[in-house]
Structure formats: C-alpha cells, structure tokens
C-alpha cells in the first residue's frame, strides 16, 4: 500500500467533504499541519467542524480557513490569539465549544482507542459540567466526557518512513498524537520522509497503523511569541 503523496492537495484528494469533523494537531502555531490546512483552503470544502486546541492566528493555521468562512464550528481550549475568530464568534457566524485542554486531549485519545466515554474530575462544579452525567467513585464526583471520532485527522510530524511511522520533534508533538489516532483517516505532513528501515523502531512516537497518507514539504514554522534572554543575564 502506497502512503506517500506528491503534495498536500493530492494527499487530501477524495477524503474531504462539506460538513465533516476534522481533528487537527498543534499547540498554538507549534506543530500545526500548515500545508494540509492550506490545501483544505484550496479545496474549498465548507461547514467544517475543527477539533483543535487553538484556532491559529489571522493569517496562519486554522485562521486561513476562518478568512474564507469554511469553518462552522470549533472545539478548542483556548482561542485568544485570533481577531477574525473573535469577530465571527461574537457575530454568531461561528460556533464554539470550549473544552478544558486535558479533556480535549483525552477525548481524542479515547476516540482513537475505541472508548466512547470516560469520567474525569476536570470541570466538576463549573459550567463545563452542566448537562453532563455525574458519578461518584470512592467519594469523589466525576463527570462523563465523550470520546471524539473524527472523519479526518490532519497532523504534522518531523520525520516519517514510507510506511507512516512518525517521529515528532520537541514540543511540536503536542496534540498531533491524540489527533492522529481519532481520525477515520489520518493524513500526516512531515519535514522529511526517509526510507523504510532507517528509523529506529524503538524511537517511533506514532506507529504507521494510524497514518494513512503522507506528504513531505517545506514548513514555515512560524513563532508566535519570540522570547529571548541576553547573554549577560546568563
């Protein structure tokens, strides 16, 4: 089975449809599938729901799909960096469901692991718990959260082999692993595809069973908050 595609547009050919639920990896602008997001913009599919921790910035990440009004609904934990997002949300054009960050990650992980629901203490006694099943275990109250089963997952990794085994780099791993597992189909973009057999099997972060399509490309990898210290402070 051939997993490697020539470019992001081809890698998404035949898997996109209006109204679909897409899980996207990334934290802020770190480790986002920037090439696949651009290809989704070019494909022009509409009414998308994105499960993604953040919503990018105005002109990068999921922000580019907000500019083209392709996103109907977001499921996220923090969206503070995107002015166009806020404009569409406040005007009622865009639906937003806030999930606590760990609940969001676990909902993806659970979906990928075939677990439709789980109990967590996170959010008990807050607006997050409203309308959810409560259950006590050993004298403590938990709420039920549901696994996410996405139609499509789009993720970004550092290296892949031709069978789709993935290795991530530093904190760019973040949501890419749980997002990849919860998609019926997962498309991964990487900085480098190496020949099968050249990755250390003990060093694989995400086994290729979760990855159906692969594309290699050039990444901008934009920095959101450039913070530095002076040499003399060291």
């Amino acid at each position, binding site marked *: 089975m051939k997993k490697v595609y020539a470019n992001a547009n081809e890698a998404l050919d035949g898997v996109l449809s209006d109204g679909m639920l897409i899980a996207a990896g990334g934290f802020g602008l770190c480790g986002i599938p920037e090439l696949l997001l651009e290809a989704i913009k070019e494909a022009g599919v509409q009414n998308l729901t994105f499960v993604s921790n953040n919503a990018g910035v105005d002109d990068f990440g999921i922000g580019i799909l907000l500019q083209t009004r392709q996103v109907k609904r977001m499921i996220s934990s923090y969206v503070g960096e995107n002015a166009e997002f806020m404009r569409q949300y406040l005007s009622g054009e865009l639906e937003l469901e806030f999930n606590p960050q760990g609940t969001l990650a676990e909902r993806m992980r659970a979906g990928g692991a075939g677990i439709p629901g789980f109990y967590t203490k996170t959010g008990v006694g807050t607006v997050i718990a409203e309308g959810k099943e409560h259950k006590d275990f050993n004298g403590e109250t938990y709420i039920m959260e549901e696994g996410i089963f996405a139609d499509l997952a789009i993720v970004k990794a550092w290296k892949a082999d031709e069978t789709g085994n993935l290795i991530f780099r530093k*904190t760019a791993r973040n949501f890419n692993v749980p997002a990849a597992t919860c998609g019926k189909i997962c498309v991964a973009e990487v900085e480098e595809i190496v020949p099968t057999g050249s990755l250390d099997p003990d060093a694989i972060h995400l086994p290729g069973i979760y990855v159906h399509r692969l594309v290699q490309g050039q990444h901008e990898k934009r920095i959101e*908050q450039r913070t*530095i210290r002076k040499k003399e402070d060291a």
Partner: protein
Amino acid sequence: MPQDIKGWDRNQMAARAAEELEDGMYVNLGIGIPTLVANYVGDKDITLQSENGMLGMGPFPFEGEEDPDLINAGKQTITELRRTAYFDSATSFAMIRGGKIAAAILGAMEVDEKGDLANWMIPGKLVKGMGGAMDLVAGVGRVIVVMDHTNKHGDSKVLQECTLPLTGQGVVDRIITNLGVLDVVEGGLKIVDLADGVSEDEMRAATQATIVG
C-alpha cells in the same frame, strides 16, 4: 504599582511562593507572577512541567537560538535542559489528572473561603478559553494561588463566595497575595503569614472571606 498598595511586590510574592516548593518536586507554573517563581527556587531541585508536552523546562533562548518546535504553554520560545523529556498532550494531562504533578502555582481573578477558584472568564467580556487551568486545579497535588489581594477598584479578591464562573470547586490549598499568606481550612481562611509592614487588622479589612483562628 499604585502607592496605596501595601506589602509585597510581584517579585516578593514570587519569592514567597518559591518557599512552598520542596526538593524533588515536579511543578507547573502559570502565566504572570507564577512564572517569576522559577527565579527564586535557588538550589532546590525542581522540575518544571509545561502542559503542552515537556518536563524540565529551561530558560528563554539566547537571540538567534529560538526554535519554533520548542515553546512553553504560553507559546513563548524556551530551551531544554539535560533532564528534559517530551511527550504528547494526552500524556501531559494524564500526569496532571493522575496527580503526578506535586503543585501548580496559578494566578486568579477571585478565590473564596471554600477553595473555589475563578480565573478564566468574565461574563460579558471576551472569553479566550480555559486552556489547561481546569485540568491543573482538578488534578495536581497542591494548588497555590498567587495574586493581588484586591482589584484595581480596591475590592477584595478573597471572597466568601466567588462571583465569576469557576475554574474549579474546592481546589485551592494556599493563597499568596501582596498582603500575606492564607490557607483554606475548615470554616474559612487561616492567616499563615503577613507581608512586611502589613498588620493583621489590615489583612482582615482587605479580606471579604471569613478568617478563622
């Protein structure tokens, strides 16, 4: 800082919060004053967690050494240490939810005498989201809040009952403000420490919550 604010400044509050940390602890620091706590841990062997997927968070990089693949939960460029380990977001919150992180030091808009904490939304204002705050306060071993005792109008932020939507219910263990240190105990808050130049009467006057003992 306005002249009528008494007691500790931001750095002194951070230094006081650093005293809460013990050798060998894994700790999560929030944004704002809590970030400054890292400057005051001294010789203690503390490992900082960044909930986007890292244990062993290092300082900001030198100019030219920024790496877009290496950021903290505030999306700032940082560096790694010899002890650093990376992992995915589900694993990160598994260690938070699972109680493996000894303490979180967080800012707050309001705290009350039952240990309820509000730090993520103000109704009618732009809401950016709770990020990982709800998971942290529900999961870590000890929650320490560091904040100014009163808001810019002079109203107490240490209340009988929070008025803002909660981040967590009954989650706060200790409150460190510019006026001193309070613990959440049975029946209310207990004064543990007073900032330099702050009297107990001043602490009580600035605190709307019930003070016991």
